[in-house]
């Protein structure tokens, strides 16, 4: 069991590193896009709200694997020379951003109306109220769900690796080690350990953020 790890350590480590980078980059994209979309959904304009709603409905109900085919093979065939890393990060990021947007939105609603109105009465514009009063509080409320969403993203990164994008992530390395050593359970066991390392780290991180910042109800 241990020798599978030691003899193939490079493979596992490089896979873990690829997964880590994939998740980190996608997380940042999801956060940014998710915030924008959440803002759309609480914007005063009906049209903008609808745009946000459509975005969320499409990307929450679309399977990630299908999105990967569209964003990589599909776009390339249409002449857009998107590479596998970009396609992978964009897909995972956009897919997750819909969930981030929804969480933020519930968070925004959790910020009481009184706060928003107080902001407006103090002379803030809608946008300023959003920026300085509502969103910061919304962010704090959404720390727990964001943690779950990040863990879901770590799991979804494996789908990116298993797709035709051919990125050498942790799951793919497990399969490569398996095809070299024919020891399926051992190869997958160590990859599982790798994934758990990531998810446990994220859980711990978010729990500590939660205890520092979360809004107590």
């Amino acid at each position, binding site marked *: 069991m241990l020798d599978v790890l030691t003899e193939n350590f490079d493979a596992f480590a490089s896979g873990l590193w690829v997964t880590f980078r994939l998740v980190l980059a996608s997380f940042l994209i999801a956060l940014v896009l998710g915030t924008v979309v959440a803002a759309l959904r609480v914007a005063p304009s009906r049209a903008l709200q609808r745009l946000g709603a459509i975005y969320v409905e499409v990307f929450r109900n679309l*399977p990630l694997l299908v999105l990967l085919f569209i964003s990589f093979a599909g776009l390339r065939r249409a002449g857009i020379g998107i590479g596998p890393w970009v396609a992978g990060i964009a897909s995972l990021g956009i897919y997750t951003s819909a969930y981030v947007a929804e969480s933020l939105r519930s968070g925004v609603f*959790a910020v009481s109306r009184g706060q928003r109105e107080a902001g407006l009465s103090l002379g803030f514009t809608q946008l300023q109220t959003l920026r300085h009063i509502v969103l910061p509080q919304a962010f704090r409320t959404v720390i727990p769900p964001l943690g779950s969403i990040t863990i879901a993203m770590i799991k979804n990164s494996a789908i990116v690796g298993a797709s035709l994008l051919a990125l050498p992530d942790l799951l793919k390395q497990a399969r490569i080690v398996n095809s070299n050593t024919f020891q399926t359970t051992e190869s*997958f066991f160590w990859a599982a350990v790798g994934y758990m390392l990531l998810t446990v780290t994220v859980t711990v991180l978010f729990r500590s953020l939660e205890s520092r910042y979360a809004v107590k109800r």
Partner: protein
Amino acid sequence: MNYLFSPDNWQWLWTDNNAGFLLEAFLINIEIAIVSMVLALIVALALALLSLSRATPVRLVAKGWVDVFRNLPLIFLILYLALSLPEWLREGWADNAPAFLPDALRGELVLAGIIGLVLYNSAVMAEIMRAGILSLDRGQREAASALGMTYRDQMRFVILPQGLRRMVPATVSQLITLNKDTTLVSIITIQEVVRTGRGLTQTAGNPFVGGGDIQAPILQVMIFVGLLFVVTNYALSRLSRRLEVRESRRAAGEGRVAVTGVEDLAVPATGGPSRS
């Protein structure tokens, strides 16, 4: 843009029963989702009860199991099972699969897909169930025991029926995720909609394999497949929302919280700490 909307690239949709093949294959996904959901619910109930057990080792093992399977990628589980499922199980299924099932669901690897889906989703649902049961007002439990009910009776007549009922919206919402996850079995060569779509892009317009003249470009095929999912899942999400509203109304009336599911998240709907 031109490429996206050009009618030449969409012609495959009404040629040669191509759309029909895709719809049939989409049914396979739905069937896998339903079967997995039913099985997952049963296993989840068992897991949830075990994780609420008063016997500490049992509780710890159940919670450990749930934690492990919630944290592993589903595709990881499915691929592992596909490579390592024991022979007797595979053969047993291939030999005894009921005849009314479509061909795509009688192959040996189907079990790897379904077991993977069940293992994963039962762990997720077990967490949701546990939250649902725990969300019941303590007063209810105390009242039940004041009435002289045994623990088992409390569970059977008071706690479970109410706790489980709260879970219905979360279950429907998890079904949406499950629906999407069924596409993962295409990677272990089960002939569902994504795999059928890819096959279509290769064979359509290829005379060598008898595919006729009209090509089916992958962008358009996958957009169509994506639409199938978006429409179906959107309908499910509307259903879930309606159930959620009914449940919140009922719960709000009784002064409690409703349980919702948001992508594997088991958190009482009105915010609050998410200790698991």
